[in-house]
């Protein structure tokens, strides 16, 4: 309006003021509309993301006989914490938790060690066949885990006894999951963004390859390493297929496998299963909350580097 009146010729002061006021009102209405649209979309996403969790939380806080009432109750009338106690006392939950912790932590630490070293070699060292090797590593990303579970099981179950790796052993569980091609790829990409001059300067300063890696490259990679660590830990904490294949005894099960085994052939205590699932999610949420600032740092790192 204001633009139009300006184009048409001189307008009186009052008219112009009215035009501006109207334009400002229109602008405010538009902003409000945009805001409502944005919140609607975000709320929808939040419901989709958080909904299943709440759906899981609800039965864990109710008696099992309360679960199948009609119409369904979303909110429990009274809080019942007995399911959590039952998980701890009637199942091997603690043992499964220890197994999972050992499994996820070991896989994470070993993966970090191998992936960062491999990433450094692929990004910064020159050796014949580097390109082909890296291509092969990346190509393994295409292979779904489900496709290799059976061969992996056969290999692990036939490993000689001196390796202490076999069915129902920690090494047998951990080693095949160590070193993720995605991690190698991530580390290599991140290390490629570090200025070549840093490595060369360190080399001229007399540092060995391992010293360069440890004293120069690794400290600069901290955000990426933490992110890879969290990813790996979270993935292994909820890994189901491989632990299911390689464990047959109750004492070696991980949480995911253990919880799945709670499902009976004829009767299933959904309250118990829900409580176990909620308890399993706890540590992973805590880990994420502690380290989430690193995610932001890692995603910013590329933008801030000279």
């Amino acid at each position, binding site marked *: 309006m204001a633009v139009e009146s300006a184009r048409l010729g001189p307008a009186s002061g009052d008219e112009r003021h009215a035009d501006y006021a109207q334009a400002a009102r229109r602008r405010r209405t538009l902003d409000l509309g945009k805001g409502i649209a944005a919140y609607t979309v975000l709320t929808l996403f939040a419901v989709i993301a958080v909904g299943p969790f709440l759906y899981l939380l609800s039965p864990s806080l109710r008696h099992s006989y309360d679960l199948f009432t009609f119409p369904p109750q979303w909110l429990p009338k009274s809080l019942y914490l007995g399911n959590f106690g039952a998980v701890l006392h009637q199942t091997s939950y603690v043992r499964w938790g220890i197994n999972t912790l050992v499994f996820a932590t070991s896989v994470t630490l070993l993966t970090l060690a191998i992936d960062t070293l491999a990433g450094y070699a692929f990004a910064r060292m020159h050796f014949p066949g580097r390109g082909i090797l890296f291509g092969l590593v990346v190509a393994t990303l295409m292979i779904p885990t489900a496709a290799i579970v059976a061969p992996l099981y056969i290999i692990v179950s036939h490993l000689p006894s001196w390796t202490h790796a076999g069915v129902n052993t920690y090494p047998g569980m951990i080693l095949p999951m160590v070193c993720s091609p995605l991690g190698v790829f991530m580390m290599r990409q991140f290390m490629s963004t570090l*200025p070549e*001059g*840093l490595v*060369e*300067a*360190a*080399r*001229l*300063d*007399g*540092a060995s390859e391992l*010293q360069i890696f440890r*004293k*120069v490259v690794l*400290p*600069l990679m901290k955000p990426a390493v933490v992110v890879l660590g969290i990813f790996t830990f979270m993935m292994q904490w909820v890994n189901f297929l491989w632990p299911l294949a390689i464990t047959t005894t109750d004492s070696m099960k991980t949480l995911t496998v253990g919880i799945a085994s709670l499902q009976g052939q004829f009767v299933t205590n959904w309250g118990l299963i829900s409580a176990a699932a909620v308890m399993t999610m706890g540590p992973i949420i805590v880990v994420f909350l502690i380290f989430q600032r690193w995610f932001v740092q890692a995603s910013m790192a590329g933008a801030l580097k*000279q």
Partner: protein
Amino acid sequence: MAEVLIKHLVKRFGKVEAVRDVSLRVADGEFLVLLGPSGCGKSTILRVVAGLEDADAGEIVIGERLVNFVDPVKRNVAMVFQNYALYPHMTVAKNIAFPLQIAKKPKAEIEAAVRRAAGILGLDDLLERLPGQLSGGQRQRVALARAIVREPHAFLMDEPLSNLDAQLRIQTRLELIQLHAQLGITTMYVTHDQVEAMTMGHRIAVMNHGVLQQIGTPQDVYRRPANVFVATFLGAPPMNMIDGALESVGGGWRFRGVDADVPLSPEVLSPPELRHEIEARGEVKLGLRPEHIRVGPPGHDGGIPGRVEFIEPVGSDIYLTVEAGGTTVQVRTDPDSPLRPGDNVTLMFDPWRVHVFGADGHNLRRDAPAVGSTLVQAAAAG
């Protein structure tokens, strides 16, 4: 401190020959500048000397020791990189101390060395800062401190000033000259900036396409360029080149080109010994520095007629772009010159100031360096 000797160095990257049979000698305590355009192989030479790249052929000798197969650190050279290459997660003090810590020197010795290096470069107050908290000039000084703390045989500097702004570059240039005077360490300095080369170098080695074009003092290289490349690479504006041919007239030489017919002084070309060579080569180029051309009124005898196209005042001088001799000629003239674009003029010069370049680009002047003289010099040295 030590002499650095490069003998018949060849370095290839795949099919590209980055350095072609380069030989040169950097005397003990000398400041040698490697000058050339991007991709001319100057940085590659530095990297080969440092040990960051392997030579495909030739020898690198540092302090009378053949170092071709010696690890970078054992060559005892320090390199300063264009982007400083400071370790961003370490404080200034730790950056400077890094080479000594790697060498497992005693703590007290490291501290003393860091303090000494920081003192020389005026970094005493910045020792606890991180590189990210420093200005470009300060970072460069930290990189220099890290280089001198090891007391190397030689400094290798790869365009250390090119990331600094113009003002800071001039200041840091002076600091580098002072530092060299103070420490007297043999220095190889790579740059594409001719002002840096002229002001800093005891000698300049001009490179192009991996080939050493000429090596000499800044004055030598500027006044007696070995070939067309050196003549046009050094100087701002660069030397003008006018195409034409030589004719022998009455025992002397005349240069004949489009609208140009000028006698050449016997100081430039000595007829008897060169006649045969010049006639065989045919076409030549007449080289004229912009500051050696005088602008006279049109129709003046003994010059080249031309027409002013552009005028660029740069404060202390005016650069005239003149269409003359079938080409574009740049002239440096008085800032009070009344000339305007479109004016007709005559370009005049002292006959003994000119250079004549043969068809293969080499300078035919009597006092120009002989072709291949640098190789002879290096071979003699080796």
